[in-house]
């Protein structure tokens, strides 16, 4: 690349008008002909280039894969324990419900029995009272009849 081309490409670069291909050509030419650039410009392109080469540890991939393998094993165990605990909790809930229901049912039956007994007692008392009242009514009727007859005799 000649000086003129390189200068115009550099100008285009700073104006943000170059495409990736032109930038590639520009950066490639910089390593061959450094005269046209200021030291800071050279340093800038060199730093960008060096930064683009930075890499993380090559062991990352292997370590990550073995870590997720371990994690998968852990997850399966966790799933088993999670499900086991869910089943245990469900069983506990069912048993507790059954016990609760039977207790409640027995309590309910006892209450019903007591209420029925109370009802029968009250009914018996009321019947007794009713028969006594009926006896009283009959006697009162006879007495009133006797009084009215006595009145009639007195009048005649």
């Amino acid at each position: 690349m000649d000086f003129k081309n390189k200068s115009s490409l550099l100008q285009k670069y700073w104006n943000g008008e170059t495409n990736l291909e032109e930038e590639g050509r520009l950066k490639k030419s910089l390593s061959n002909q450094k005269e046209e650039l200021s030291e800071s410009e050279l340093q800038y392109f060199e730093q960008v280039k060096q930064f683009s080469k930075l890499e993380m540890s090559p062991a990352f991939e292997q370590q990550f894969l073995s870590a997720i393998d371990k994690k998968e094993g852990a997850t399966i165990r966790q799933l088993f324990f999670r499900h086991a605990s869910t089943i245990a909790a469900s069983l506990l809930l069912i048993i507790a419900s059954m016990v609760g229901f039977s207790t409640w049912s027995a309590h309910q039956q006892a209450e019903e029995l007591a209420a029925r007994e109370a009802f029968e007692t009250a009914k018996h008392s009321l019947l007794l009272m009713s028969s006594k009242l009926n006896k009283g009514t009959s006697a009162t009727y006879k007495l009133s009849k006797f009084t009215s007859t006595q009145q009639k005799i007195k009048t005649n």
Partner: protein
Amino acid sequence: MTKEQFTSVIFPLQQKLYRYALSIVYDTALAEDIVQEVFLKLWNKREGLAAIQNIEAWCIRLTRNAAYDKLKASSRKVEQLDSIAYSFVANSFPDREAENADLIQSIKDLLQDLPEKQQEIFRLRELLGYSNAEIEEILALDRNQVKVNLFRARQKIKSKLLQLINYGLQK
């Protein structure tokens, strides 16, 4: 997505994601942690990855979010794989580490005065080598915004370089 598919599709992005994270947090260990975290997220969502149209753009967005979350978090501790001990082999080249630290600091100096959008575009274009069209998709910007911000970013960097020539100062 099977483990083999994950290895063939996601792992080639590893270095790009690392450099991207590094250009945000400027810390190699933290950048590695971020990539690890992003990969874990991807692995946990591997069933749904096939439905994603542009997985690379999606990974870049995940990395950016993770990196900014890390910057916001006061603690530098990273979530580990449950209780599994997980550590990288320490870099056994201290001189290279020092060189890299200088390089990272220089990139930080270049970027720190740029507005966030210009920084993002600069990272994707200069450091990761994405085209304007790809940047549009990753950052959800229109063509004009990408072009204008790239122009402004480069102009600011150019004037900064000129200052260096004139004054021989870093800032």
